């Protein structure tokens, strides 16, 4: 099944997902642009909201408050037709270093991960590393088993992908 994606042009830039350890998940991707552009797309709310929820079937981002600076907070709310209530994701930026690093907490649950994104420029291209560190192995297992709760989001992405392929 992964092969279908490989033939598309976007597959030139592979997104790699790895479970690094019992408590860590890592996603990497290289973008063909200097770091200041990639960082801008990530750190400006009006740009961030254009890609964080890929123009999806069903799922919509109803609010997106991001105060991107060290100590600032964020709150994203999504709505999905299958659910009465919007889903909220929120937390605090622990570190924001322009063109280098953003670190934030995920405070929807007590066992939320700490997320670190790093940006590294090499010869005009930018390597983005998205790293989630869960407080305990149990918390990652919980995310694994309990990901049913994050279902609408995931399915929206699946719908999107399926629509793209057909």
């Amino acid at each position, binding site marked *: 099944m992964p092969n279908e994606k490989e033939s598309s042009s976007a597959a030139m830039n592979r997104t790699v997902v790895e479970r690094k350890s019992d408590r860590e998940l890592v996603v990497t991707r290289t973008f063909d642009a200097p770091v200041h552009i990639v960082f801008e*797309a990530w750190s400006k709310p009006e740009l961030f909201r254009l890609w964080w929820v890929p123009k999806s079937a069903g799922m919509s981002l109803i609010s997106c408050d991001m105060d991107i600076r060290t100590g600032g907070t964020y709150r994203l709310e999504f709505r999905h037709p299958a659910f009465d209530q919007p889903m909220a994701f929120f937390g605090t930026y622990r570190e924001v270093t322009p063109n280098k690093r953003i670190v934030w907490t995920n405070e929807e649950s007590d066992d939320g991960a700490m997320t670190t994104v790093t940006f590294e420029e090499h010869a005009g291209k930018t390597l983005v590393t998205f790293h989630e560190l869960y407080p305990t192995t149990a918390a990652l297992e919980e995310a694994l088993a309990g990901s049913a709760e994050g279902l609408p*989001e995931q399915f929206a992405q699946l719908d999107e992908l399926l629509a793209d392929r057909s």
Partner: protein
Amino acid sequence: MVHYQARLDATFAALADVTRRGVLEQLGGSDASITDLAEKFDMTLTGMKKHISILEQAGLVTTEKIGRVRTCKLGRRRLEEEAAWIERHRQLWSARFDALDELVEHLKRKEKANAQRKRK
């Protein structure tokens, strides 16, 4: 793909219920009969049978009838589940990063155009 999605669908539907997650946790400790589970979760035999049947369809639980007792145990899905979880993450992030890629391309072209305008 459709088959894969249908399977994920069944898994997530099965996991979306707090009682069924409790049952999985219970069975992680030891096998149990439907009667045991119904008692433990304070519910009717029929209610528990329904839950078990959903877990069974998702491949998370297997059952075996010996005599008059139906014993439930965890299915062999844990590793598969993990693989599925990673795969869903990959799909989510591929979709996200493809969109970011498009945006980044757009910003790059805009910046180039601006720079050329300035030079003129």
